């Protein structure tokens, strides 16, 4: 009877792991002479604790680069872990890279986010959205909305983090840099609640 129960628990945990969604990153077109990088992979999603749940949803869309331009979109390397018993951790990351034209450069990095529910019956929710702008002419546009940390380490704690960064467009000779990331949210006390909402619009 005990063996059957453990088997059922194993099947349930496998089903929970299978429920995590990680759509493939979309790489845009790169014309001759341009440099383009789109990294949306290396995402980790783990439900280690007994009856824990971990859900992850990641979308990375690379932009297009033409002529001498450079377009870099990194939306990956996100980690989502539910360690605590009966813990729940949900993570959603969206990174949309912009397009570069002429001698311009656009870089959009919305990845490297961490979400952790390590306390017993803890809940950790993380939502990160980074939308890179467009660059034309000789301009430069950089949007960084990643490197955010969200953790619910206390027993019965809850940590909710929502970070939205929308990069602007740079045209002609202008240069625009937007850093909306590197935010930290943590609920470490017993039964504590930490809610963080960061919105940066350029």
């Amino acid at each position, binding site marked *: 009877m005990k063996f059957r129960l453990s088997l059922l628990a194993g099947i349930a945990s496998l089903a929970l792991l299978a429920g995590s969604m990680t759509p493939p990153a979309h790489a845009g077109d790169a014309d001759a002479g341009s440099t383009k990088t789109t990294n949306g992979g290396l995402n980790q999603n783990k439900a280690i604790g007994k009856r824990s749940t971990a859900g992850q949803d990641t979308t990375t869309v690379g932009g297009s680069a033409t002529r001498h331009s450079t377009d870099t979109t990194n939306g990956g390397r996100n980690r989502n872990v539910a360690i605590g018993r009966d813990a729940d951790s949900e993570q959603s990351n969206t990174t949309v890279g912009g397009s570069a034209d002429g001698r311009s450069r656009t870089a959009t990095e919305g990845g490297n986010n961490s979400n952790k529910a390590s306390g017993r019956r803890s809940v950790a929710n993380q939502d990160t959205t980074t939308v890179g702008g467009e660059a034309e002419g000789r301009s430069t546009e950089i949007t960084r909305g990643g490197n955010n940390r969200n953790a619910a380490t206390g027993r019965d704690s809850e940590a909710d983090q929502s970070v939205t960064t929308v990069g602007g467009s740079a045209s002609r000779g*202008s240069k625009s840099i937007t850093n909306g990331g590197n935010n930290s949210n943590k609920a470490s006390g017993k039964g504590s609640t930490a809610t963080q909402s960061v919105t940066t619009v350029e």
Partner: protein
Amino acid sequence: MKKPLLLLLGIGVMAWPLVATAGERAKGGSQQQTHLQQTDCPKSVTQVVKPKNVVTVDGETSDQQVVENGPALPAGCKPLVSTRVVTPLNLATGQGSSANQEVEAGSQPAGSLVTRDVVSGTNRAAGAHSTANQGITATRKPISNLPANNR
């Protein structure tokens, strides 16, 4: 052969005051323009918003609201570099304490060659049964509903 050389030398000596006057005028105009830029329209603008809201006492509640617009510049002024740094801290360490923080930063100068916007918030609920809520908004548009102490 010597006559054309002497003629050119004579023309040069006669034209020297005119050239010197033109150069002085150009220099004076440039100085005046630089002076105007330094006083009214700076080349670089930096705005730092760094509020702290820390609750260490048990059962205590602290609400903080910070609304800041960028520096007021004259019409048509476009600084070369515009930087804004928003790094708020919200911390609830007391047992059953509550820390609420709301930060709004707006009105960044438009038309700058380089525009930097750094937003990085820290929110912690470290005490038992504590609550920490943090809301950060950074936009380019000016925020009209400024509180009375920030107008």
